[in-house]
């Protein structure tokens, strides 16, 4: 076994150990065992960092890959299925190494942060236990080398998110939110499982590597449409976990969990799992599946951004921005900007974790006030939080010199390349929605920063709610008692903010492509054929166009033409090559447009909230329908209530009626019949059978009594009987003689 594999097994199992220790013994340990969680996660991060060092820094090879597996369950030859062997294994490549480090670092920082944030909670110890199993599940997804294993950990992530979102389960809204999250995820998971089964039915293996190998060899026995369906079904898992439209509704409600959990869910673990999974299976996605993915991503990014503009809750704005950014990543994968999407996944993880932890610090300092309307002026009270939050905001908005700028622009460049490669038209919608979302992102983040940190304190403006004792506590004009949080909450903020700066990823602030990250994560070659997409004329045209742009090598043209002539399943996918080169060419264009968009967004935010040229409330009234649409989250909850939930309830009620009347009727009918039959049988037993038995007894009894009388015991009586018998015999004998 490779030493890296051994290390990664330790990385995987340590958080589980933390969970086991804390769930059973937290009450017996000093400080409820928080040092166990933090210590173990620190160790885990150390090991991951070492793996990162070996894989990324020492090897520095885009094709690096170490794998190991063992047979877990061997069912032998199952009738109707064929040989069924389930293997478990670990694969370590650059993507794994980066994800491992990211997940463990953020999880470690969240653990550390929680020692401050959750202090005094009555389930303090259990919180760390849940964080442990959450991290374990996510690491399992990252390390798994086959679809079966990833599905197991996928469900474990669902479970642990359920536990953490409903951590304050005494609150009804939290209990509802956890159920909603779990159910929404289940919908996606069913699709994912069907997708896994389609692939399994063809190849009889769950392993990525083997599936890709078979696909590349053209061994997929079903039609191209089935492969597309498999890709889209697998993507459904991502739609659930990564909160894409139409299953995005759970994520904003997941804000009911404690804020450190929000940071973990929204940055490193849960939502990243979906994007990571699509990246893992990227090579088997057909162009048709990729169209679906790109449009879903673009629409999600746009819709969530419009909602984020009008929300008042500080965490809700961030939640919708997460949905929106996840839309970007999915869009990136859909348009084939693979490395850019992963890049955005990682950069987003850091700055979004920073934003959530920052908002947690604010909420903590404001005594659980989450409404931005009653904040303001916090920059003086909380300088550390202010600076780190602002850095992360700049990254999220995509300002130059930040990490988010590089990754987002790489995705947008990919989107432009995609639209050009597909020949424009409707495909331009994808980059268009992307840019519009970038504008809105800048706007709502500017709004948030301003409402929270600038201006004067507005705590006293909050309408007094007699039920809310926090409000009474926070009253008094100035931020009474609002001050900077302790070091263990500040340190994670600083580290995460530092990771949101461009130098970590690339020396050139304008081009992430020059950094180590984009070098290490390169778009893998697709394993599916071009059967549906192959239109030679278009290809030639595009290749010429690309050549005209000047950024093309001869090789690409050759590959494209070779692929077209043979029409075989080929590694060198001309479509990917086109998009790649068009994206490269579109890079500067993307930077320009997106910078303009970001500038516009920030300018709008300034106009609305700083210079007060437009009054937000009057504007809201002027465009009331649009405002209401955004404020009520496009009414998705209401739509789902009216359709899916009502529908389910109607079906449930019908089934309940069916159960109560038909099924129970049948059961009761059977019971009545049985009862009747039992009575009949009982009566038969009582009268017929018992009657016969009793009659026998009676007969024996009476005949016995009669015979008994004959037995007088007197010799003479017997003599008489003998004589009579003899006499009788003689009479009989002689009558016989006569006749």
């Amino acid at each position: 076994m490779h030493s890296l594999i051994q290390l990664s097994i330790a990385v995987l199992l340590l958080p589980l150990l933390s969970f086991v220790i804390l769930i059973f013994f937290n009450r017996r340990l000093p400080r409820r065992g928080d040092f166990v969680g933090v210590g173990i996660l620190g160790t885990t991060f150390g090991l991951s960092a070492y793996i990162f060092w070996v894989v990324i820094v020492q090897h520095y090879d885009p094709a690096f890959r170490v794998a190991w597996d063992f047979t877990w369950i061997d069912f032998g030859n199952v009738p109707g299925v064929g040989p069924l062997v389930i293997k478990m294994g670990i694969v370590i490549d650059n993507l794994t190494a980066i994800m491992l480090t990211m997940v463990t670092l953020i999880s470690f920082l969240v653990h550390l942060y929680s020692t401050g944030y959750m202090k005094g909670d009555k389930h303090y110890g259990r919180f760390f236990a849940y964080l442990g199993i959450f991290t374990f599940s996510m690491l399992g997804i990252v390390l798994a080398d086959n679809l079966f294993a990833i599905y197991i950990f996928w469900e474990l992530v669902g479970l642990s998110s359920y536990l953490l979102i409903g951590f304050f389960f005494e609150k009804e809204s939290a209990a509802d939110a956890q159920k909603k999250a779990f159910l929404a995820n289940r919908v996606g998971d069913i699709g994912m499982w069907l997708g896994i089964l389609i692939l399994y039915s063809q190849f009889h293996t769950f392993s990525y590597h083997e599936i890709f190998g078979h696909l590349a060899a053209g061994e997929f026995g079903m039609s191209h449409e089935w492969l597309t369906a498999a890709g889209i079904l697998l993507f459904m898992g991502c739609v659930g976990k990564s909160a894409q439209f139409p299953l995005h509704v759970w994520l904003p409600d997941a804000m009911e969990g404690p804020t450190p959990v929000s940071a973990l869910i929204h940055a490193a673990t849960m939502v990243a799992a979906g994007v990571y999974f699509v990246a893992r299976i990227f090579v088997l996605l057909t162009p048709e599946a990729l169209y679906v993915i790109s449009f879903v991503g673009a629409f999600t990014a746009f819709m969530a951004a419009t909602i984020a503009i009008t929300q008042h809750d500080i965490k809700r704005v961030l939640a919708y921005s997460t949905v929106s950014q996840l839309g970007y990543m999915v869009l990136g994968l859909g348009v084939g900007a693979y490395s850019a999407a992963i890049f955005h996944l990682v950069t987003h993880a850091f700055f979004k974790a920073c934003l959530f932890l920052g908002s947690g610090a604010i909420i903590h300092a404001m005594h659980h006030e989450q409404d931005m309307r009653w904040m303001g002026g916090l920059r003086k009270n909380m300088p550390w939080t202010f600076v780190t939050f602002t850095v992360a905001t700049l990254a999220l908005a995509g300002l130059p010199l930040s990490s988010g700028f590089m990754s987002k622009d790489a995705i947008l460049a990919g989107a432009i390349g995609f639209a050009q490669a597909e020949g424009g038209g409707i495909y331009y919608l994808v980059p268009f929605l992307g840019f519009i979302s970038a504008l809105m992102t800048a706007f709502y983040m500017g709004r948030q920063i301003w409402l929270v940190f600038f201006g004067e304190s507005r705590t006293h403006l909050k309408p007094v709610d007699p039920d809310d004792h926090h409000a009474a506590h926070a009253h008094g004009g100035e931020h009474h008692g609002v001050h900077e949080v302790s070091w263990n909450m500040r340190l994670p903020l600083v580290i995460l903010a530092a990771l949101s700066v461009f130098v970590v990823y690339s020396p050139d602030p304008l081009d992430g492509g020059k950094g180590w990250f984009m070098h290490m994560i390169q778009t893998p070659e697709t394993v599916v054929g071009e059967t549906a997409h192959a239109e030679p004329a278009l290809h030639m045209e595009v290749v010429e166009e690309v050549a005209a742009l000047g950024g093309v090598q001869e090789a690409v043209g050759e590959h494209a033409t070779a692929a077209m002539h043979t029409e075989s399943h080929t590694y060198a996918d001309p479509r990917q090559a086109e998009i790649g080169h068009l994206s490269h060419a579109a890079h500067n264009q993307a930077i320009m447009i997106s910078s303009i968009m970001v500038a516009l967004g920030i300018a709008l935010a300034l106009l609305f909230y700083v210079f007060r040229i437009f009054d937000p409330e009057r504007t809201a009234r002027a465009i009331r329908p649009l405002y209401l649409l955004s404020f009520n989250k496009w009414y998705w909850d209401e739509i789902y209530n009216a359709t899916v939930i009502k529908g389910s309830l109607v079906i449930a009620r019908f089934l309940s009626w069916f159960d109560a009347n038909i099924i129970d009727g049948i059961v009761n009918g059977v019971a009545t019949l049985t009862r009747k039959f039992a009575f009949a049988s009982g009566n038969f037993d009582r009268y017929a059978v018992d009657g016969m038995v009793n009659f026998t007894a009676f007969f024996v009894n009476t005949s016995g009594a009669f015979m008994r009388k004959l037995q007088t015991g007197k010799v003479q009586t017997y003599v008489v009987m003998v004589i009579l018998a003899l006499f009788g015999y003689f009479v009989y004998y002689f009558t016989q003689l006569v006749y």
Partner: protein
Amino acid sequence: MEQLTTIGINHYLTISAILFSLGLYAVMTRKNAIVVLMGVELILNAANINFLAFSHYNGGMEGVMISLFVIVLAAAEAAVALAIIINIYKIFKSVDVSSIDSMKE
């Protein structure tokens, strides 16, 4: 008429039947065990008369032989029976056969 005056086999058989009936009557009705035993002797002797009569009119000696046998048998029987009666008397202090009904139980 001749049949009544001349002694023939019918006379013997009639005597034998009367004797048998008297013996049977004694066995069935008498209470004293000794008398019952005497009734048995009568029956045996009735049988003897039958044997001798048939033997005489048949011209063989088998009947005579068997009747001698019966006399011997009767003697032995009387001895055994009397011994039984003595024992009965020892147990029940009575030789009344109608009162001895312990076989009933």
